[in-house]
């Protein structure tokens, strides 16, 4: 059996502090280079990097998983400024079915701090899209894996109640602001950085009655575009300090590498303002200097704090997550069957070729001893042996497909491969191989597709 498998190396809020996650985070600008460098390793056939504020994960399809993981660990260590041994303590590894299950759980929001959050599904899609835009980064395995992950994420949200009323970072931000101000009716808010998360948070605040909105962005045009959609006033980053004294809630969501809100500047700008200021720093790396939280009348919360706020809600949601877990596990099993069946395809093909060779040899021997047969009789005998072969191979083909998903059958399949004299599967030629598999089989030769597997599972 081929040693190639799906491997995952990653760190997340479960295993790493926000400081480490900040260092390891791969922004969209450097994501291409990171993937490209990883693909230079011959051990890696396919690679997708999923990097969000909560996790950085390397999904690999590799002929040599150990070497491929070493490349990923080296990449993480370099970004973290640590040795591979040091960073290893914060990493997790998943192989094969476990890796598939992990990605599906991530896409479904089951691995998120805020269980059921919807943002992660979009981020999984973005990681996949970016992989597609890079040559050879996404092949048939990760292509199908990420498409399936997105389908699972959608199914969980539409078929279970996990997504309903799910707490999110924006809703946590609203709750925190409400614990300071009570009603948010008539309050003012400023958003620095017109990114998606910042604007989503702003929309949440607006739905709670925020009346005065300022949107500051590095490029004023982008800020103007945003206020054209949601209302408010666009300002440049330079004007932030003039306006900040009249603001009740400040949301920062830029992609700046350095903090954009400095303690000294905020302190001098706010002066003796009597009302409090809630600062919600939802950016990673953080936009606000941690010392800002020590200023009187200022309540500073970063992304980890927002996650804590909904911690209790998450506990309640975990209890509601059981149906989603079942759905995810079902999809992961289906995917894994497909993955293993694409490896068993050449076996089926080899078995059929072997049978066909035996049939033709035996047919030739038989016909040599039967002189005087008419052409139509010969055709009838030939058709009978073909039907006989198909009927004999059909149960074997079905059994092989089932064995593909059974970890205990690996030795049996390896032995069969040896008996048939078949070489290992080349992961980079799977597209061709899949087509070949589709054409083989007992009656029409097809190996179970994912939908067929689903039907089997349901029945």
């Amino acid at each position: 059996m081929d040693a190639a498998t799906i491997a995952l190396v990653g760190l997340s809020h479960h295993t790493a502090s926000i400081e480490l996650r900040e260092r390891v985070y791969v922004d969209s600008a450097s994501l291409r280079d990171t993937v490209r460098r990883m693909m230079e390793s011959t051990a890696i056939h396919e690679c997708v990097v999923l990097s969000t504020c909560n996790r950085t994960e390397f999904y690999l399809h590799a002929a040599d998983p150990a070497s491929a993981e070493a490349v990923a660990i080296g990449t993480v260590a370099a970004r973290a400024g640590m040795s591979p041994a040091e960073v290893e303590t914060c990493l997790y590894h998943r192989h094969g079915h476990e890796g598939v299950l992990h990605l599906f759980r991530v896409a479904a929001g089951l691995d998120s701090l805020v269980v059921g959050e919807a943002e992660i599904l979009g981020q999984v899609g973005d990681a996949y899209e970016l992989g597609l835009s890079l040559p050879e980064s996404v092949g048939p395995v990760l292509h199908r894996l990420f498409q399936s992950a997105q389908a699972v994420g959608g199914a969980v949200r539409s078929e279970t109640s996990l997504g309903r009323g799910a707490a999110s970072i924006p809703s946590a931000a609203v709750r925190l602001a409400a614990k300071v101000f009570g009603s948010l009716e008539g309050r003012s808010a400023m958003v620095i950085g017109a990114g998606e998360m910042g604007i989503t948070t702003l929309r949440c605040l607006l739905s709670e009655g925020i009346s005065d909105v300022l949107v500051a962005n590095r490029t004023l045009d982008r800020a103007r575009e945003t206020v054209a959609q949601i209302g408010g006033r666009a300002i440049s980053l330079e004007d932030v300090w003039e306006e900040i004294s009249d603001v009740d809630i400040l949301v920062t969501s830029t992609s700046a590498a350095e903090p954009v809100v400095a303690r000294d500047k905020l302190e001098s700008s706010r002066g003796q303002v009597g009302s409090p200021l809630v600062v919600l720093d939802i950016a990673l790396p953080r936009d606000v200097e941690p010392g800002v939280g020590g200023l009187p009348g200022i309540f500073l919360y970063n992304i980890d704090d927002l996650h804590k706020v909904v911690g209790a809600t998450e506990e309640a949601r975990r209890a509601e997550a059981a149906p989603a877990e079942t759905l995810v596990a079902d999809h992961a099993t289906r995917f894994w069957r497909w993955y293993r069946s694409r490896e068993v395809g050449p076996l089926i093909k080899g078995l059929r070729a072997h049978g066909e060779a035996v049939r033709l040899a035996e047919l030739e021997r038989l016909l040599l001893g039967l002189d005087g047969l008419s052409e139509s009789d010969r055709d009838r005998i030939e058709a009978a042996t073909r039907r006989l072969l198909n009927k004999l191979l059909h149960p074997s083909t079905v059994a092989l497909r089932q064995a593909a998903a059974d970890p205990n059958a690996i030795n049996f399949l390896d032995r069969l491969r040896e008996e048939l004299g078949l070489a290992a599967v080349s992961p980079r030629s799977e597209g061709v191989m899949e087509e070949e598999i589709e054409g083989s089989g007992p009656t029409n030769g097809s190996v179970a597709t994912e939908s067929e597997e689903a039907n089997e599972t349901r029945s």
Partner: protein
Amino acid sequence: MIIGLHLLAFVLYATAWVLQLRGFRRGREPGISGVTVAGAGLAVHAAGLLLYALSYRSLPLVGLGPASSSLALFISLFALAASVRTDLRAAGLFLLPLVLLLLGEAVVVGIEPTGRQIAFRGPWFVLHVSAIFIGYAGLAAASAAAIMYVFQFRALKRKEFGSVFGFFPALDSLDRLNKVGLAVGFPALSVGLLAGWSWTLTFGRGLALDKPGTILGIVTWGAYLVAITARSRPGPRGERAAVISALAFLVTLVAFLALQITAREAGFFL
């Protein structure tokens, strides 16, 4: 019957407090059940005092038992009035123990006339005691808000999103309750003290500075004057005002206990 009604009110208030405690332990915002039970307690309590007034043809303002019960009623009224706003239902967590303490004291010492009723009557006296009680009740509400503010403020600053964060109201709501409590309580206390002074003048006497009640009133008035002043200073005032309000309550409580212990007429000075 009067004692029976007071005991029933005590049980209802205690139940309401337990419900509040349960909500606090779970870190959930208080529900309507605690408020409903406290409201029932207030109704029974008021019925008990009404029965006292009808039975003895005298307002329950004189004597430790009746006076404690009346003060408890005023504080309970404040707690319930605050609970009209959903986000301030949690105020009962701090106000109900005060109510229970005063009501328990009233039940223990007895809710009966003291025999001094003839001396302590007339409109000035009624105004004096009623205003003082409203003043104390308002200040108790302001203090409860201040204490909760300090806890909530620290929970928010320290990012501790547990019971205090979940159960206690928003800082702004607590600041408003503190403001209203001071705005009602301080003038009422001032009026009460002035009315008391005027009342003593009718006997040809000046301000009775040797009386524990007078000392307590003046100490409380001074403590809350400081709390009001703290609110008017520029800059972020929330925590500062809350801490000073809480300290003012502590000063009043210490003064009350010290006078109870040292004054010979301790059981009467309320």
